[in-house]
């Protein structure tokens, strides 16, 4: 019934002098890519280099919300596949990822927002993803705690209801993928820092780490919020990424009161109830680039103000923990996935902002295909870095973003 009490990702392995593939970062995108490389392509001579421990960064700090109601036709199919993969992965990894497909309710607070939602919903429906525009009363039926009165700061006009979305247990995904990858021979080197990438004749040749050098022909950097800095430091490639701290928090655990993920752009707030009963809620990013992951007094107060209005019963509930993680934001809020372009053998998977968790399953699959075949899959082609050089943004966000003064 229970997995045996033995180390889930093997005993600590010694670092070899060469690997077929080196992956820098021990988060979800790395683990998923390694997992699919072993599963689909039989490539098992892989080292994952993680400075801290697996799941230390965004993988362990996000609030694990999944959905496939993105804005553009390039993104929707990718996220749809990611969403469809959770039950598959639960089975294949034989690890309960605790997928609660409770559905997401994205509140709209103006006529303009309803129009924006309609476009997103039409795009979803066109691609076979279930999503509906509902009015305030229907939203209240789904979420009885919702305040649909007119006299709040942002009265609720309606909502985008996306039934197949939901929440997972993020740590379980990390551990499940790590266990499956390690079982196939992937070596996970924790407490090991990648220091540089060596190139020869424009090709990747080696990776130096705090525990010694490794020869390799393929390197993937998918280190979440730290990717852009690593890629610049190691290869001098400058990415249009701004890194910002994003905070999330939980209340004390409660018996079931909130059955869906509820989010609001106008309030900069989302909330859902975890299986443990906590109301997990997160906010917008801190409005200045930084790598601190520091908490601020402002955000927990802001969050309380927002929840007080649209889920007023939560006024009687207590916050018990706030934490911060990093969001690596691109100008169009779509990621950068590229390979063999800037340097042969070098792959990158970054710029996910706060979408890294929900995409990891499908991205792992396609990045593995990309690395194993050296051919960019059609699914990933729109995400290449060159779109910024061509001034062709992806349109994943309608409104202008403003992370730094120059965008």
């Amino acid at each position, binding site marked *: 019934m229970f*997995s045996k*009490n033995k*180390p889930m990702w*093997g005993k600590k392995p010694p670092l070899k002098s060469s690997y077929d593939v080196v992956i820098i970062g021990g988060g979800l995108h790395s683990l998923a890519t390694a997992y699919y490389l072993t599963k689909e392509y039989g490539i098992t001579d892989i080292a994952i280099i993680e400075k801290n421990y697996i*799941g230390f960064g965004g993988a362990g700090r996000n609030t694990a919300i999944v959905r496939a109601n993105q804005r*553009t036709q390039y993104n929707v199919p990718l996220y749809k596949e990611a969403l469809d993969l959770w*039950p598959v992965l639960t089975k294949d990894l*034989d*690890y309960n*990822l605790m997928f*609660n497909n409770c559905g997401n309710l994205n509140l709209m*607070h103006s006529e*303009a927002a309803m*129009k*924006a939602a*309609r*476009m997103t*919903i*039409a795009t979803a*429906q*066109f691609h076979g993803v279930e999503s*509906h525009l509902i009015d305030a009363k229907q939203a209240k039926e789904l979420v009885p*705690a919702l305040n649909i009165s007119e006299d709040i*700061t*942002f009265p609720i006009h309606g909502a985008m209801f996306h039934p197949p979305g939901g929440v997972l247990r993020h*740590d*379980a995904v990390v551990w*499940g993928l790590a266990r499956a990858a390690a079982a196939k021979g992937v070596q996970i080197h924790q407490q090991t820092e990648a220091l540089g990438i060596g190139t020869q004749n424009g090709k990747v040749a080696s990776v130096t780490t705090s525990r010694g050098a490794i020869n390799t022909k393929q390197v993937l950097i998918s280190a979440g919020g730290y990717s852009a800095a690593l890629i610049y430091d190691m290869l001098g490639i400058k990415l249009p990424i701004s890194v910002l701290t994003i905070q999330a928090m939980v*209340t*004390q*655990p*409660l*018996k*079931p*009161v909130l059955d869906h993920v509820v989010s609001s752009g106008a309030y900069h707030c989302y909330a859902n*109830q975890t*299986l443990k*009963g906590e109301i997990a809620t997160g906010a917008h990013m801190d409005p200045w680039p930084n790598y601190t992951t520091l*908490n*601020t*007094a402002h955000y*927990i*107060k802001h969050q309380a*103000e927002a929840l*007080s209005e649209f889920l*007023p*019963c939560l*006024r*009687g509930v*207590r916050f018990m*923990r706030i934490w911060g993680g990093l969001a690596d934001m691109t*100008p169009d809020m779509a990621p950068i996935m590229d390979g063999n372009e800037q340097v042969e053998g070098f792959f990158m998977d970054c710029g996910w902002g706060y979408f890294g968790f929900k995409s990891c399953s499908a991205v792992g699959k396609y990045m593995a295909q990309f690395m194993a075949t050296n051919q960019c899959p059609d699914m990933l082609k729109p995400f290449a870095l060159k779109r910024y050089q*061509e*001034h*062709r*943004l992806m349109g994943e966000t*309608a409104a*202008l973003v*403003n992370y730094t*003064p120059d965008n």
Partner: protein
Amino acid sequence: MMNRLNHLPTLKIDTARKISFTYKGKIYYGVTGDTIASALFANGVRIFGRSLKYHRPRGLYSLDGECSNTCMQVNGIPNVRCENTLLEDGMVVAEQNVKGSAENDMMSFMDKLDWMMPAGFYYDVMHKPAKLWPVAMKQIRKAAGLGKISPDFKMPGKYDEIFLNTDVCIIGGGPAGMMAALSSAEKGLRVILMESRPWLGGFFEYRSAEYKDGQTLHDRANDLAAQVRARENIRLFTHTACVGTYNNNLVTGFQIGKKSDVFDQRYVEIRAKSVVVAAGCIERPLLFDNNERPGVMQIACALRMAKTYGQLPGTKAVFSIGHDLGLEAAIELHDLGLIIDCVADIREDGQDPALMQKLMDRNIPILKGWVAAKAHGRKVVKKVTLSSIDGLMTRTLACDLVVASAGVTPVTGHITVALGTLKYDGHTGCFLPDRMPEKMYAAGRVLGLNDAMAIEASGTLAGLKAAADCGAGSSEEIGKVAKIVASLPGPARGSKLVTAPVKGRKSFICFDEDATIKNIKQALAKGFDVPELIKRFTATGLGPGQGGIPGHNLPLYVAKYQTLPDVSIRPTNVRPPLVPTLISTYAGTNHTMFKITAMDQMQRKDGGIFRNIGVWQRARYFSDDFSCKKEIENVRNNVGMLDGSTLGKFRIHGPDALKALQRVYVSDMSKVKEGRIKYSAMCNDDGCVMDDGVVVKLGENDYYFTTSTGRAGQTAEWIRYHTRYDGWDFALVNLTDSMGVINLSGPNARKVLEKVVDIDVSNDAFGFSAYREFKIADTIPVRAMRLGFVGELSYELHVPASYMQSVWIMLKEAGKPFNIQNFGVEAQNVLRMEKCHIILGQESEQRTNLLDVGLGFLWDRTKSEAKTVGAVALRQAENDPARLKLVGFKMENNGRAPKDGALIVDTKVRGYVCTARDSFALNEAVGMALVEADLSRIGTRLEIFEDECGDDRIYGTVVKMPFYDPEGKRMKM
């Protein structure tokens, strides 16, 4: 109800004043000063609730609410920490997480099933077959969680907020904190002292041991409190828990109001120049089997039950302690009437001889090198088994109280959340401050001190250091006091034992999550080798007690188990809020902060229906008919007024003003002529349109320009950013709030305006695109522009905000004969759409560039590229076939307008509808859409996919823009 010990000087209750409350539907009585827990205890309640997983009985443990043991549902509010919540008249109190009652819980069989629930077991079960999971999940959700909140719960009470500035902020009102407050206050500084309990005194307050010269610690605490209260420059916040410490010494907390206060709770945010942390210690829980059985409690809990609340915590007690505080408590409680069978002390030696003598005098046997190994009793403690530390000898004693504590551990959360670091100290067995955050000082027991004099002196020293950061005091004085502190007893040797010699199947390291020592071993075996990971895998420390119970034991146990060296031991992260804080308290007064224009009230009186638009509130409709037919027709055929005050309005002047405009606008701004308006746009480096508006020239290098409503906030920063290396000399003034705008539109607009102004407003004298300045009634300065956004004869009048209402009334009066009407933002939206005048954000999105929306004619290519933001990108985009283009379309067969946001499709998405309406003026449905270039030719059929359309499509045809008055005669009339 139990008789209270009535004559102790330390009591905080008034037994003469009874308070009634309801518990499980019955009326009970406590007394004034009781907490909910002490009142229940006085009424014989021992089992306060049941634990999360195993439904084990739980009771009083620390009296400071470090665990969920005594969390209850109070007045409908879940998870109220009864140990430190004062009882109020009429409170309705209920147990949590019980099936039946806390006394008889039908789920208590779960305790026997722990073998089925090893660490992380839930990841290994319930997902096979897949159908099982949704069913299992429902049960998990029901079983999880402590406390209930009803979806329609309305939180009673008043919640306030206060934002303070101070020189020194002191966290903790015990002896060290009070001494720190006094020493920095003596320097004439402003001092704030925060204390989480309703009274000052901390570690001294409940103790009768001698301070000095026959004075008790309790009396000393009162003396110090009186001194603190006498200082006018110390602002005292009692009953105020500190919940967060942030960058640059921002301290937050919340205050619980007294009856006389106007608030129930108040959020407190303090910006201090320096901070002293004197938060004291909590006790480190002792790990042994059934270490959380009701009847097992910590030393201060047992002692304070007697000294503060006048109740003996039991009748017959066994102590298992590792600190002199335990010996002192045994003596005091014995003298108050508690029978003490035995004191087991973890320490082989090092006890205070005076205390040992007193124990001997009272015939209390002491077992050195012994520890509690197991508490017995199904619901409450009946017996306890003591064991020698090596586990070789045991002895079982009958008792109803086990006072158990492994030692003390400093409360360091205030330091670590502010990014200070801790170091494990082998001498005390505690985590002590290592690197303190800038301008933050630790004092008292946080430093591991135990001696009363040393605690006080360390407070004085910290207060002086904090004062020095505010520029007061001398380093000599600090040196002197530092010497005194050094001469006093330092940190005492502490017990390092974490767990009794047991296997740990029922030794609970975390009460909230029912995590045992055995669970920790299981996690370690699975490869979770860092406390931070074990925390996640076993949930240890993630419950409502926020790690108060396991926070320091977990890393100590893990280090011991892995035989790691002391230097490697790190406590798990503590996170704010340091004390769980109500959302209503954080929200405080929750102000609405929208800007309103000068016309707000008058438009509301006229029936305006308002909407939030960016930072503003604007009138969007003037009737329940959201198609705005009447408003629209009135503008097309008569005359209407719109409040356009939210437009961004700026003046830029100075020798280099023109250069700055040239940089950010795509047009050649040197061609702006006095008396004329120029429409232009700003792009970003990707060529995407950021903003559009008009510019007028007031004089040489002196311009007035408008931006869209949403862009006003960023415009000044935008211009400064893009001229940051040039050293140009210009000034930019944001006039958005100080100027109002009235848009007077419609064929009768001139007839209205000429009645109000003295200047000639004929088409010859004030034609289309002209700009005029004049005064109304020789008093009100007006900047007037002939624009045509809605496609009719229009005047945009820019008026100082203070005169807006006057001008508005004058125009309204003048317009009465024509039946002038208001129109709102939605009517304007349709009117301008019929003219195909774009609104950025509606006909554009982030990725849309100047050329895409057909505004390429604004771009002056003769300006050198480096000078115009976006020009490089525009040049590149000119030859890019893969961009979306803005087109106008009509619906086929007189069909209805598609909904905004509908898609243009074939086999894939090819574009989307920006704005479309059934036009009253044209009597057909028209709109604008952004489509791929090959669909942009006139006559192209557009297949439109709306949400919920299924397989049905509607069709439109690309037509020439604009739809209405293509020659523009009406706006130029």
